[in-house]
């Protein structure tokens, strides 16, 4: 229930090593964050250099094969000085450790759109692409995806300053324990709770509602796009590969021809080349699909922020409700009227009037309770306001990032298409030359 209580705010403050909770500096948040955000990448170069297979025993003592990824970090200055770069610090991490890191970030920074991890299992694949988790192409694409994740976190104005993240990059041993020590797991909201909150919030923030709708739409449209793209890739693959049959038949045919033979034979080779060229084209296009997938998974992160906002809004409304209930009770006691049918009213009718002392002590207790409620409401109000401000600044940042990234993805997709066209023109021109010689 206390996912954003004062404790967590303090912790955020500690981790961010700044006083963003104080209202005066809030206007400067973005600027200071950007300044500090560049710090980590300025200090450090981060990459996921390679992947490797390991075999070991899992928690239930079963043999399993898994993939580990080599994280390399090195001081950035050593590179810019032009000398031989210092040997990088390296450590191995499993995908599950990345997942733990992300869960930790998700819980610790409820108002931030946490960058998504690459998919755990290959989704939206077309038939030639392996869905096997240990498939080298899949592992390679995941390596790129994990590196991208680390770079996204490292360039994020808030997340880049997180100590656990820093330890993830630098301390192979004891990292898991350090994460668990933060106690973040206690703050994990149950999905059920946030679901019920979303149904019960009375005054939803329109901005968040529309953001939620937008990310629902985006999620639908991107998954639709990815599904169709996989089918398009399948079909395109078919069109190209059937041309390999021309390669074969031209070669066979050339055996019975005199003047035409050579031209046919070499045109056949070009048809083989054409058929083979699709493998690289579609492999490259997979990168575009991965870029889209990242934003598909981002929509979950956006929705998670929306959900957390609903939860905090719900808590605020509950506090307000609680307070007004107490105030109503007090009024009833003072005036002796019962506005609504209540259990208390019933008992007083059944067991007779209370003594004056009893009444007074009750009113005093109520007043105390109202005072507490007012404080709690104030606190919740401040908390909500803070959440909204922080969340909204991150949402704005995210929108810009999304527009920039997707525009670039579309440009690179167009470039891929152009290169495919050029390859096609090249191969067919070569074939034409051969046909012309016949």
């Amino acid at each position, binding site marked *: 229930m206390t996912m954003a209580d004062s404790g967590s705010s303090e912790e955020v403050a500690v981790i961010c090593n700044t006083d963003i909770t104080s209202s005066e500096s809030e206007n400067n948040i973005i600027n200071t964050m950007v300044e500090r955000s560049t710090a980590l990448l300025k200090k450090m170069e981060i990459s996921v250099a390679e992947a490797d297979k390991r075999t070991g025993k899992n928690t239930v003592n079963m043999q399993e094969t898994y993939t580990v990824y080599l994280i390399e970090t090195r001081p950035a200055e050593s590179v810019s000085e032009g000398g031989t770069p210092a040997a990088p610090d390296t450590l191995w991490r499993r995908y599950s450790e990345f997942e733990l890191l992300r869960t930790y970030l998700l819980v610790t920074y409820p108002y931030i759109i946490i960058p998504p991890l690459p998919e755990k299992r290959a989704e939206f694949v077309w038939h030639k692409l392996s869905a096997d988790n240990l498939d080298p192409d899949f592992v390679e694409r995941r390596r790129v995806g994990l590196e991208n994740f680390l770079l996204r976190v490292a360039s994020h104005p808030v997340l880049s300053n997180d100590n656990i993240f820093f330890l993830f990059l630098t301390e192979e041993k004891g990292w898991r324990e350090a994460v668990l020590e933060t106690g973040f797991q206690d703050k994990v909201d149950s999905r059920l709770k946030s679901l019920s909150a979303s149904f019960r919030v009375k005054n939803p923030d329109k901005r968040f509602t529309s953001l939620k709708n937008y990310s629902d739409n985006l999620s639908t449209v991107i998954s639709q796009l990815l599904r169709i793209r996989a089918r398009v890739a399948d079909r395109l693959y078919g069109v190209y590969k059937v041309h390999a049959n021309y390669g074969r038949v031209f070669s066979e045919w050339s055996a019975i021809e005199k003047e035409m033979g050579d031209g046919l034979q070499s045109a056949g080779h070009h048809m083989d080349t054409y058929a083979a060229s699709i493998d690289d084209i579609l492999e490259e296009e997979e990168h575009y699909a991965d870029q889209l997938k990242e934003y598909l998974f981002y929509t979950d992160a956006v929705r998670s922020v929306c959900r957390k906002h609903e939860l905090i809004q719900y808590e605020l409304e509950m506090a307000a409700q609680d307070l007004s209930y107490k105030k109503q009770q007090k009024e009833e006691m003072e005036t002796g009227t019962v506005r609504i049918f209540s259990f208390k009213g019933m008992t007083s009718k059944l067991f007779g009037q209370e003594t004056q002392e009893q009444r007074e002590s009750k009113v005093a207790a109520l007043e105390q309770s109202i005072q507490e409620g007012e404080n709690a409401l104030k606190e919740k109000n401040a908390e909500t306001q803070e959440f909204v401000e922080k969340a909204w600044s991150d949402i704005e940042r995210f929108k810009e990032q999304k*527009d920039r990234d997707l525009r670039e993805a579309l440009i690179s997709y167009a470039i891929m298409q152009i290169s495919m066209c050029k390859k*096609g023109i090249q191969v067919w021109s070569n074939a034409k030359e051969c046909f012309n010689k016949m």
Partner: protein
Amino acid sequence: MSVGVPRGLASSGQKLITEILHPLSAAEEPMSPGPDVTAGADQEKQEPGLTNGAPVEISSPSSASVLLSRLQLDDELEADDQDPYGSTEARDLFVTVDDPKKHVSTMETYITYRVSTKTTRIEFDLPEYSVRRRYQDFDWLRTKLEDSQPTHLIPPLPEKFVMKGVVDRFSEEFVETRMKALDKFLKRVADHPVLSFNPHLNAFLTAKDLNKRQGLALLTKVGESVKHVAGGYKLRARPAEFCAMGEYLDTFSQKLGTIDRIAQRILKEQSEYLTELREYGAVYSSWAGSEEQLQRPLEGVAGCVTTSCGALEDLSDNMSQDFLPVLREYVLYIESMKNVLRKRDQVQAEYEGRLEAAVLRKQEDRTPIPVEVEKCQDKVECFNADLKADWERWQRNKRQDFKQLLTGMADKNINYYEKCQDAWESLITLLQEKQTEDKTSETN
């Protein structure tokens, strides 16, 4: 009928068909009552007006002659360009099949095509003719040619019956494809040093009305089928070159069949690809609707996908209309060639049979080998010579046609990719312009 010594025939060393009876058709007379000869005689009687040339349609003389002279020029250029042998056979007969028209009567609906002729040959009364012919008329001509020139390869007509009734016989594509095939057929006949002098061709090109010959066409067909029954005789030694031709034709038709299947399969894959691609483009459009900054880039991508769809459609249409029919025509052409080879075998078989019988008789009663057998031998040699000449010609044509067909296929694919490339390149220009705009507005 005016008869003259045609130019360009000296090299082939053959006399004009009307001047002498072909050894084969002469020898045929005693064996089976020659339908050809009677048919020819009947024709003379029944269609006295047939050889009278119909004057050129004067509806659009200028455009027709412009077209013809252009075609003539193209043909000559082509000959110089591609056919090293073309120059030895000066062309003086140019035919074109175009302008299909639909005729609807109470009895039937059919298409006629305009057959235009331009010539300097003296067998023709006029330098230009224009007549309208329907498929049946072409079929008649082909049958006549096959019967009167049995030693020659007669080019194929497009298939008479449409497969499975899937295709609409009166659809624009079907008529267009058939017209091209008929044009090809007639051009091949007109370019042939022997066939082009056949009087039936003359009649076909010039007669105003060909209607009266229907019954005769039927008769000759019966005669033809009678002739085929005579086969089934084992040859002692078929010359190696004809064996090689047969083997070549078998392999070639097999390869063409494969190419045809591949081309159809590609068309199928392309049409499935097109279906998915259309949907793919639509998703970009619908995405564009929910974005602000990304709206234009997304719409741009949708536009490129749509352009690519159009280009792909063009490619598929071109392939199914220009590529596949030519392949199929060649399969028929191979069949015609095989048919001639079979006929040659029959003639050789007949000679061998007679020779064998004569040799036996000679051993028994010492009679000399009769003239009849020698005639047979002449016939075989004549057939062989015709066939070899036609084979060479066919090989040259085939080489030209496939060169053209396959470079055409390459061109169509190149054209497809160029259209797509243009679309994507203009999208990039648009996106980058937008980006620099944004950047300048940011710095301002």
